[in-house]
């Protein structure tokens, strides 16, 4: 079974700082990582391959340096890596991104064999939209299974799959037909440590590099900024709050005294909280 995992290289948002004067992102020195949510997708794909045979191709769209992330995926055990990179893709919103990735997926199917399952993470940590997966599914006419917590059953011969999907208040057990696009929920598995063999292979592996033309994209007007219906009008830093923090003095206080001070300060700041708490205590 040929499985494709769509990944994204993202800045480690935990380490991003905003320039205090210019309000721009200071990218310098911020490490890039594979979008953490995509690792759950990759691990799930590798497990299916290990169980059923076949191969796993990882695909990313991004600048040339995104090759790093693909190489990392190879060290985890992916079999093939495709980098979709072209200036024409710059400024893509989610609609334009799913257009390009769908084209690349179609091309991967032609070049390396049909793709019954496409995996991706539930969202990225930089964009956080969760829109690209559904966009790809819709464009390629794949059945869409988002927020998947578990693959309960997969029958490649019958072409059917059953999954548990996270919904409001519980899990939906859904069955559908291949081909599908699955977005994996976080925390559902743990990424393996790649083997030495994988590391050796990854170091020597050729990452397939495609331009828009290589991926068979002729409508460049549907890519990048031109192909993006949403436009960013302005970017700005969140406003600092006018209300200043009120410090509870801690000097010369034992912990228990301090706790009483903190409680009193809370009740002074928002008297309704005390009323609510007493009502709750009375109801217990």
């Amino acid at each position, binding site marked *: 079974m040929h499985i494709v995992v769509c990944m994204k290289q993202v800045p480690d948002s935990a380490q*991003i700082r905003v320039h205090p004067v210019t309000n721009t992102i200071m990218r310098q020195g911020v490490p890039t990582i594979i979008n953490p949510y995509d690792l759950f997708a990759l691990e799930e794909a590798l497990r299916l391959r290990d169980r059923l045979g076949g191969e796993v191709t990882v695909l990313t769209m991004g600048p040339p340096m995104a090759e790093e992330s693909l190489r990392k995926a190879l060290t985890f055990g992916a079999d093939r890596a495709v980098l979709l990179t072209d200036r024409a893709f710059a400024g893509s919103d989610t609609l334009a991104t799913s257009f390009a990735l769908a084209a690349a997926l179609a091309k991967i199917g032609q070049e390396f064999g049909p793709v019954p399952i496409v995996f991706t993470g539930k969202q990225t940590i930089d964009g956080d*939209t969760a829109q690209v997966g*559904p966009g790809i599914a819709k464009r390629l006419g794949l059945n869409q299974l988002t927020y998947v917590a578990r693959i309960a059953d997969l029958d490649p011969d019958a072409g059917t799959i059953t999954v548990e999907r996270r919904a409001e*208040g519980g899990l939906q057990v859904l069955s*559908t037909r291949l081909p599908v696009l699955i977005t994996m929920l976080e925390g559902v598995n743990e990424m393996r440590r790649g083997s030495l063999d994988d590391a050796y292979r990854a170091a020597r592996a050729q990452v397939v590099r495609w331009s828009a033309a290589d991926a068979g994209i002729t409508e460049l007007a549907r890519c990048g900024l*031109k192909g993006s219906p949403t436009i960013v009008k302005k970017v*700005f830093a969140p406003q600092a709050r006018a209300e200043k923090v009120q*410090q509870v003095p801690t000097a010369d206080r034992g912990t228990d005294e301090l706790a009483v001070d903190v409680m009193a300060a809370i009740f002074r700041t928002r008297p*309704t*909280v005390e009323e609510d708490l007493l009502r709750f205590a009375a109801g217990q």
Partner: protein
Amino acid sequence: MTDAPNTNAPRPAAGRAGTRRELPEHFKAYKHVWVAVECEHGIVHPVSLELLGEGRKLADKRGVELAGVVLAGDELTAATTAAAAFEHGADLVYTVTDPILAHYRNETYTRALTDLVNTHKPEILLLGATNLGRDLAGSVATTLQTGLTADCTELAIDDEGSLAATRPTFGGSLLCTILTLNYRPQMATVRPRVMSLPPREPGRWGRIVEQPLALAEEDVVTKVLRFIADRESDKAQLAYADIVVAGGLGLRSAENFQLVRALAEVLGGDYGGSRPLVQKGWITADRQIGQTGKTIRPKLYIAAGISGAIQHRVGVEGADTIVAINTDPNAPIFEFAHLGVVADAIELLPALTRAFQAHLSVNRLAG
């Protein structure tokens, strides 16, 4: 595929994005503000009501009607959901009622909603950024080939009448305002608890416009086999809790997280944590508070050992009172907390639990 993207739809002439302000002729008929009202298992999701409140303001600003969209499996669900929509500000409600829609499926809901949009042409379409809403919004926007802005924190109408959707970017470090100029509808999702709940006006009513769904169950590929409801103990109602106590890496160990839970229990509140705690496996992902986790709006929020990275700030800014406990006086959390305590949460939390317990029991006896 019954609803593959309509690639033949007329598209605006290619130009540099954002430079054209003249809406293509075929989009000029698009009017009114719509809110998709989510009603899984017969329960109207509060985010939909919050969105109706926001949608009301947008509709008034544009001088157009506000409509709720109700996709339901049976008449009773449709009627109760429509009633909730009217009582929270809708002028009219579009309903599609069909047993096929009893459980959410991407295929059926995408079809029902895109058919409604193509028939009645809204200029703005809002959905909750729930699992259902995000799954549906992405498909509908792709099918309609229009713009979709996720997880907005502010919606407004700009001087030229466009929807200006503001959302956090780069994990919340910055905000950006996004427009969809040349395409309709302008779509956006908003997370639960970001907008405030409008007051309910009992008895308020409006028009209902019903539309049939031209889809047979045999033609739907995906089947819902069953639904495994969460156990009561698994149901984190964090987003809607009045009091929330949360912990961060300052707690130093998974065992110490128990101190957070103990205080939350005495206060009758819920508990959560910052993103690193999920990564370390100390708490489950549904307890994560912040831009990539839950947005909360409690009356009282106590952050213990949380430094307050911008990612976290975005998720808690709606709280009435933020109390921060941290050993580092320079922690960013002290920039947006209302009350700051420079102390070790591991020592202060148990003392606070004792103090509240004593106060509450004494005053209960006195009352």
